[in-house]
């Protein structure tokens, strides 16, 4: 059987002075994902490999790591597609390392929360006790749909050059979600979100390097969302169409 050379960056911040690369030999089979290879190494060679995963199907966002230099989901990357003899697994850049391949996503989730990632209505009574369903037309949905697929895996934020140095920049994931809610016709929270995001460390610290969209495994295209937010702020026009701007979105009348 062909062998795969699997290299894992190991580092325990409590006891190790510096990260080191350790190589494991793993039997290679067709269709094997990098997560499969890592699990083999952990189960049969070195029980101490620190690893996080859950769904194994690109839905939970917990297995993000740097594979052969680029952020990817281990469960969604086949060894064969890398076209390399050697697979190098390292923790995601820009996130604190907990141990080996496990990074701390806590502050990343906090950034997400800070952009108010939910629909906001001016009317507090209506917000808590809606009088009906808020229906969207298909074209209105398609304006935000791809951004709703975000699984918060952190790949985009680890690829971002601004995040590499700017600790106050929310990062592509949070900004894409700011777009997702602001561009939703049912939302009225855009002005408040933008008050924060039009500051020194907001959307303008994006320079459209596009790496976030390049690495996103879910087709979210954060760079697109961020540029559309910039257009929204620069033009003063809502990110949805002009017609929507003039009317306040109302709950649909109860059917029956």
């Amino acid at each position, binding site marked *: 059987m062909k062998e795969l050379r699997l290299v894992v960056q190991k580092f325990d911040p409590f006891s190790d002075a510096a990260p080191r690369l350790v190589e494991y030999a793993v039997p290679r089979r067709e269709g094997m994902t990098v997560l499969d290879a890592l699990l083999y190494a952990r189960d049969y060679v070195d029980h101490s490999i620190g690893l996080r995963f859950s769904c194994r199907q690109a839905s939970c966002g917990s297995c993000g790591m740097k594979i052969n230099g680029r952020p990817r989901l281990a469960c969604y990357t086949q060894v064969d597609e890398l076209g390399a003899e050697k697979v190098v697994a390292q923790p995601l850049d820009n996130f604190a390392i907990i141990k080996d391949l496990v990074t701390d996503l806590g502050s990343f989730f906090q950034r997400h929360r800070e952009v108010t990632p939910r629909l906001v209505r001016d009317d507090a009574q209506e917000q808590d006790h809606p009088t009906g369903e808020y229906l969207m037309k298909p074209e209105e949905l398609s304006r935000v749909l791809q951004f709703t697929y975000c699984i918060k895996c952190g790949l985009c934020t680890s690829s971002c050059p601004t995040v590499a140095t700017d600790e106050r920049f929310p990062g592509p994931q949070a900004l894409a979600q700011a777009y997702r809610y602001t561009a939703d016709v049912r939302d009225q929270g855009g002005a408040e979100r933008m008050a924060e995001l039009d500051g020194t460390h907001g959307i303008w610290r994006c*320079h*459209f390097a596009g790496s976030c969209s390049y690495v996103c495994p879910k087709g979210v295209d954060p760079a697109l969302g961020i540029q559309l937010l910039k257009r929204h702020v620069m033009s003063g026009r809502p990110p949805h169409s002009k017609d929507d701007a003039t009317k306040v979105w109302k709950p649909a009348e109860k059917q029956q």
Partner: protein
Amino acid sequence: MSSGAEGKAKNRRGLSGWLNPYHYNFERWAYVFQRVTGVAILAYVIGHLGDTSFFVGGPTGTGPSESSWTFISGLVENSFGHLILILVVLVVIFHGANGIRLIVSELGLILGRPSPIEYPYRPKSLRSVQRVLIWVAIALALVGTGWAVLILFGGSI
């Protein structure tokens, strides 16, 4: 966690995240060059303020002075100085043309609109118009450079 462990484990890429686009997309390289050329041009401009000031006798001069200008020309108008000028032409044209691409894109104009995803998915924001425009910027910069080489090293000086 002790603060020492925290520092070691922080793992932000730092300046290499700005300067090393390896493993990433083509547009990321354009980002690096936009930044590096911007700073380089500014450095040149500041120097250029210095050398042009010798037209009026240097920083402490009081009016047009031919001897002062002849002095500075002797220092900067040589093969090395002209090589610098050619590099400046190269980076200015790239920075300017790529800058126009960035302005237009950052105002959301040539990106396309969000749409339902079909696999295999290619991000709309990275569709081919971006790469084409970056190549146009590179081509314009090279043409301008060729022109500068002709003028400065073409023997017609």
